[in-house]
């Protein structure tokens, strides 16, 4: 038998290769999500919602029910779907612009209410789709289209640390973690925990993933990994901030 690419079974193959730029971290995150959907066998129960930004290019990514919302509204749409059809699993997928700037009020209130939904937020420290402007998670000193001299913290403040503030807002049963695309096995394990938390009905699940954006960082492959591993992962601590699963899964992981 001829060998086939190792794409997850839940991927919708007629749309592949997908629309993301070469080297984009979204592909790695969605591969981990696809493999987890396959392994948990939840392809028929899942509703995948994507937000505005680069993350909306995932609208035809999976062979499962999908919806697309604008400007951070994926969180309330997922909450509404979950409340009307509690047997479904709702997975919201957004970027740092949609989640932390324009949609932060939705994210925050869903976390306070401890809604039983799963949210995956891909953090690539800029607004990718509109050409690489400064986002809430841009590192101090990082050069973007709107901060040509580097982000000045005296004017624009410091990067938003989503999992940290969400872990103080949520109550028991929430799962809050941050992963990175440079450690794939850890990313896959955290994503599995985030989905499992919703399947068990414990509460709010949130996973932030640090991702690459070679197009807007203007980096080659080597500089891309160096920027992600040496600078972004120093600013944003990778690990599980809050977990209802007890100490067994709690390791703050170095892969």
């Amino acid at each position, binding site marked *: 038998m*001829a*060998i*086939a*690419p*190792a*794409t*997850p079974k839940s991927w919708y*193959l007629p749309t*592949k*290769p*997908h629309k*993301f*730029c*070469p*080297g*984009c*971290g*979204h*592909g*790695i995150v969605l*591969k981990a999500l696809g493999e987890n959907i396959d392994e948990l066998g939840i392809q028929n129960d899942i509703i995948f919602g994507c937000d505005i930004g680069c993350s909306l290019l995932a609208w035809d990514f999976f062979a499962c029910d999908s919806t697309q919302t604008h400007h951070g509204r994926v969180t309330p749409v997922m909450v509404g779907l979950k409340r009307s059809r509690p047997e479904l699993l709702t997975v919201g997928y957004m970027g740092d612009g949609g989640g932390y700037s324009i949609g932060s009020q939705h994210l925050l209130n869903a976390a306070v209410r401890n809604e039983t939904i799963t949210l995956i937020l891909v953090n690539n420290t800029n607004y990718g789709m509109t050409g690489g402007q400064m986002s809430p998670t841009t590192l101090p000193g990082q050069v973007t289209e709107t901060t040509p001299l580097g982000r000045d913290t005296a004017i624009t403040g410091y990067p938003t640390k989503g999992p940290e503030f969400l872990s103080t807002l949520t109550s028991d049963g929430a799962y809050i973690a941050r992963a990175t*695309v*440079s450690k*794939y*096995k850890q990313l896959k394990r955290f994503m599995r925990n985030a989905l499992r938390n919703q399947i068990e009905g414990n509460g709010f699940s949130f996973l932030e993933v640090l991702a*690459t954006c*070679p197009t807007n960082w203007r980096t*080659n*492959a*080597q500089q*891309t*990994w160096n920027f992600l591993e040496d600078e972004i992962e120093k600013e944003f601590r990778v690990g599980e901030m809050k977990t209802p699963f007890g100490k067994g899964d709690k390791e703050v992981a170095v892969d």
Partner: protein
Amino acid sequence: MLKEMEVISASMERAVFNIFPAYCKGCGLCTEKCPNNTLKWSDKLGAYGTPTVIPRDEDSCIACMICAMVCPDCAIVIERKKRTK
């Protein structure tokens, strides 16, 4: 039924390296993540007319499969070989 895709295979000491040029966008994340620098650019062009990758020799691959793991497009498949002693 999906039609069969073109695949380029390279048999090495510990693994068979397969790459699907229709999926490879030539981002280079795999070449940089490889712990032994096994991968190099090849003449074969990929999805966006960018070069794909190919192993440079037969014995430096340790079949760790990191290249397949970090590939955002699932273009690489590594088949491990059984050790013959």
